[in-house]
């Protein structure tokens, strides 16, 4: 499209959208969050067809499209310790926020780790925050354990786990 052909000013229209809503987690996630909040336990479901351990639990297995019934044998408890599969270092916000011009430069961010809690199989991956901010001390395969918030601060959220701490050998 040509510009500058004496069409007059081209304007911008300021805009704002706000929304508030309430959202239940759904049956399986609800139960997982309740167990996390009240008992510091991680519960996953196992697909009865392909035996994948799904954490967070899903009501339909994503690979074989089988509906996972709410039966006792389909639930498996995972451990509070796990193995780090991989991680990435967070250096800051990817882009400058266009509305505020804000860019979090120079801050230290905790790395995001991909953790397989004990009891999971090769399909179980949980993305969560790691405590260790120095990436040279992290490597795939290192053992980590969940550090929970105090009981009175837990709200039934994924952040009820504060972070995952490197497990010292022979702890």
């Amino acid at each position, binding site marked *: 499209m040509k510009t500058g052909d004496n*069409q007059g000013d081209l*304007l*911008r*229209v300021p*805009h*704002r959208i*706000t929304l508030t*809503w309430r959202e239940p987690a759904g049956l399986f996630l609800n139960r997982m969050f*309740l167990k996390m909040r009240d008992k510091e336990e991680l519960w996953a479901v196992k697909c009865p067809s392909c035996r994948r351990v799904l954490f967070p639990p899903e009501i339909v297995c994503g690979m074989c499209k089988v509906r996972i019934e709410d039966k006792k044998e389909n639930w498996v408890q995972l451990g509070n310790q796990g193995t780090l599969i991989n991680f990435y270092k967070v250096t800051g916000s990817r882009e400058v926020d266009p509305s505020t011009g804000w860019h979090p430069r120079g801050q230290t961010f905790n790395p995001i780790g991909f953790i397989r809690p004990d009891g999971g199989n090769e399909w179980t991956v949980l993305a969560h925050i790691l405590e260790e901010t120095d990436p040279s001390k992290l490597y795939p395969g290192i053992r980590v354990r969940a550090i929970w918030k105090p009981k009175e601060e837990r709200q039934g959220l994924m952040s009820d786990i504060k972070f995952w701490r490197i497990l010292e050998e022979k702890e």
Partner: protein
Amino acid sequence: MNIPKEDEEILVSERNFDSIFSYTAGRTRSKFLTEIRDNKKILGIRCPNCNLVWVPPRSTCIKCFAHLKDFLEVGKTGTVKTYSIINIAQPFYPDKPPFIFGVIQLDGADNGLVHLLGEVEPEDLKIGLRVEAVFKEERIGSILDIKHFKPTAIKRS
């Protein structure tokens, strides 16, 4: 069927979303806004196929997808087609409640323009009320350069 157990607590999270942004008005809408700003004129655009006049003007007819470029001036007066009295505050609203949103069919236009209705008591509002545009003194090229629409002095018999 998966159903929750009877004594199971149901967690509900409160979520909110807030986004402040701007978008380019485009050539057609920019002309509409600059005419309000500079000349206190409200422009419509005519579709030659449908013979309909759209206010605010748009570059494409929403009925026949024709490319539109026949600007014409529509009246500063119009008729209230419907209205809504707002009592709940939202951050993106142009005014503090209570205020009135109206859909106004300007004279010469074939669709309604959403704008504020002012200088009118809620009990005097009715569909078919004749209103006229009140322009602000300081105009910046926004649809809110029209302060609101107020009832015309001559009442319909």
